[in-house]
């Protein structure tokens, strides 16, 4: 990696910088995001660079989202930073009952972006590790993005700001510092399009966010056994790019869906449900899913490492799938 390489976190910062620079309607609102630059430094220096447009909020998630909605109605393009995805539960009502319904009810669009630093990291425990994509994706009217790469973190955040609908932007904390790219992309996949991260022909793994990397590592592992695994990165989980998934399953005949969140009603359940209903005939074996274990996200790194799917548990699931 060169010294000038860009992290996933920096890509998010740069996307916000670009959005602020290019669109006077954009402002950012969140706790400690001003002079301090945010708990993760995703807004570092932005308050200085864009005076009065990167504002510290009180500890009031409900009102933070409410403020964003009201500003969006008046033509602004607010970005709200939740300090952790887990605290968005306190802004839940405004998101699902006001932002999600506004356009349907009144015809007025609600272009807000709510950034959710999501997902587990070691030692973060039950309240600083959650993945809430399935909760928000249940509600019609909300777009839910889950970028897995530095490039996507950048382009999709810009896309989110440009979109006329409320966007829940699940940026993955585990990827913040680990993931790096040499430069920012000029181009992006179209909105809502999944990516074939790794082509293959023996089985399809559908994943998103941090799980894409576990899936790729598992695929590498299985390549030593002669298997050729395709990895599909959903990129957005609402909408879901069913066509790309079905086309992949048509090629491979086997499907494993991996989600970092809990199974009940999660992304994996939704993807499997779509493939079972729309692509039943494409399946050579029962589709499978692998999710987090059914408890709150545990604190101790050893428990956490078992709670979430990993390259090795994905590889195990794949081996089982290939034998079905």
């Amino acid at each position: 990696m060169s010294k000038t390489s860009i992290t996933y976190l920096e890509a998010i910062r740069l996307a916000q910088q670009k959005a602020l620079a290019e669109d006077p309607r954009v402002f950012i609102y969140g706790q400690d995001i001003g002079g301090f630059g945010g708990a993760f430094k995703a807004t570092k220096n932005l308050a200085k660079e864009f005076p009065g447009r990167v504002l510290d909020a009180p500890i009031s998630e409900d009102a933070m989202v409410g403020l964003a909605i009201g500003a969006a109605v008046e033509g602004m393009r607010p970005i709200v930073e939740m300090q952790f995805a887990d605290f968005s539960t306190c802004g839940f009502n405004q998101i699902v009952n006001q932002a999600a319904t506004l356009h349907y009810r009144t015809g007025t669009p609600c272009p807000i972006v709510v950034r959710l630093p999501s997902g587990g990291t070691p030692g973060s425990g039950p309240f600083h590790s959650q993945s809430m994509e399935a909760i928000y994706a249940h509600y019609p009217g909300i777009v839910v993005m889950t970028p897995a790469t530095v490039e996507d973190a950048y382009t999709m955040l810009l896309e989110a700001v440009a979109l006329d609908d409320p966007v829940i932007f699940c940026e993955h904390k585990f990827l913040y510092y680990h993931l790096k790219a040499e430069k920012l992309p000029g181009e992006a996949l179209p909105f809502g399009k999944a990516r074939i991260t790794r082509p293959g022909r023996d089985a399809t793994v559908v994943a998103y966010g941090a799980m894409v990397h576990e899936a790729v590592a598992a695929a590498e592992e299985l390549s030593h056994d002669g298997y050729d695994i395709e990895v599909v990165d959903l990129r957005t989980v609402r909408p879901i790019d069913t066509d790309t998934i079905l086309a992949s399953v048509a090629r491979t005949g086997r499907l494993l869906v991996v989600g970092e969140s809990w199974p009940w009603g999660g992304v994996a359940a939704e993807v499997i449900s779509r493939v079972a209903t729309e692509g039943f005939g494409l399946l050579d074996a029962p589709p499978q899913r692998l999710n987090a274990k059914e408890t709150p996200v545990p604190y101790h790194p050893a428990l956490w490492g078992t709670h979430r799917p990993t390259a090795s548990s994905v590889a195990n699931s794949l081996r089982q799938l290939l034998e079905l």
Partner: protein
Amino acid sequence: MTKSSTAAPEAKGAKGGKKKTAPSAPKGKGTVGTPGATVSKELARRAYRSMLEARLLEEKLAALYRSGKIVGGVFLGRGQEALSVALGVHLRRGDVYAPLIRDQAGRLAFGDTILDTLRTYLGSSLGSMRGRDGNIHRGRPSEGYHAMISHLGAMVSTVCGGLMAKRFRGETGAVGATCIGEGGTSTGSFHEGMNMAAVEKLPLVVVVANNQFSYSTPNDRQFACGDLMARAEGYGVTGRRAVGNDLVDCLAVLGEAVAAARAGKGPQLVVADLLRLVGHGEHDDASYIPSALKKSPLGRDCLEIARESLLEHEWLTAKEAADWHAAVEKEVEETASKVLREPAPDPSEEDWNAFSALGRNGEEAR
């Protein structure tokens, strides 16, 4: 209005002196008002007209509900028109207004119409909500007229957002306004919104209509401070008190509040005691409201008090009052007949799409 019912001083968190509950008997002619606020003949007439429209329109809504033409809840503002209209009538184009359940009068004063109200209640496809939402959940947000969600307290921060947008754009002189019942002040949303408005020193006016009950729940089960004016100081905002069923007092106090907000003096909390003279909704007989309370000054009908005031001030003649009544009644009846003949929304014509940007079936990326 006598001087003794003068609004609270503008000092932050003003205590507002003793509670003002008894409607003051208005006296004298021409413009009246408290220092810093005046009530003109013109304003009072406009306000009274909207009150009358609200009252007669709501009577029609109740009748339509009883005859099964309106399906779902009907929540009326009878008895609260004076306070409601006093806010609506002081607002103007470019302001941001999020009325609540009992704000038919304020809505009409702000520019909503009898026609759109009926269309929304009856679910006409021609109404602003196109049958998708109904009754009090209506508005035209893009015109600064927010469509409340049911969750109480939620609109406070939304209005803050509208005001922030104007601030970002360098627009000055606009105010934001919303109403809430005393019960709604118990929500976390209300608290967060008030605190945020205070931190940002936004030109926000929040009117608390303390009608002594939240649905059936009396105030002693809702809050313990006795007087919600005491909350103003805790937020660091200006508190004012109005006599909730006295139009002239409400106009004066809201006039001051709106003017102070417009002048950059930060959020204004107005608290007024009153009584709703009707059930929580039309399904409710309000039998939990003690008749002694109904017979107290709080239970006096604000529309009657307003009419008397205007007559006494010679701002309105008895003939005009009667003519207005007849004209509004006619308009309401004619509009209702018209709307009853309008097309209901056709499910097969709906796009069944909650997204704005993604188009019909656009949710699926193709």
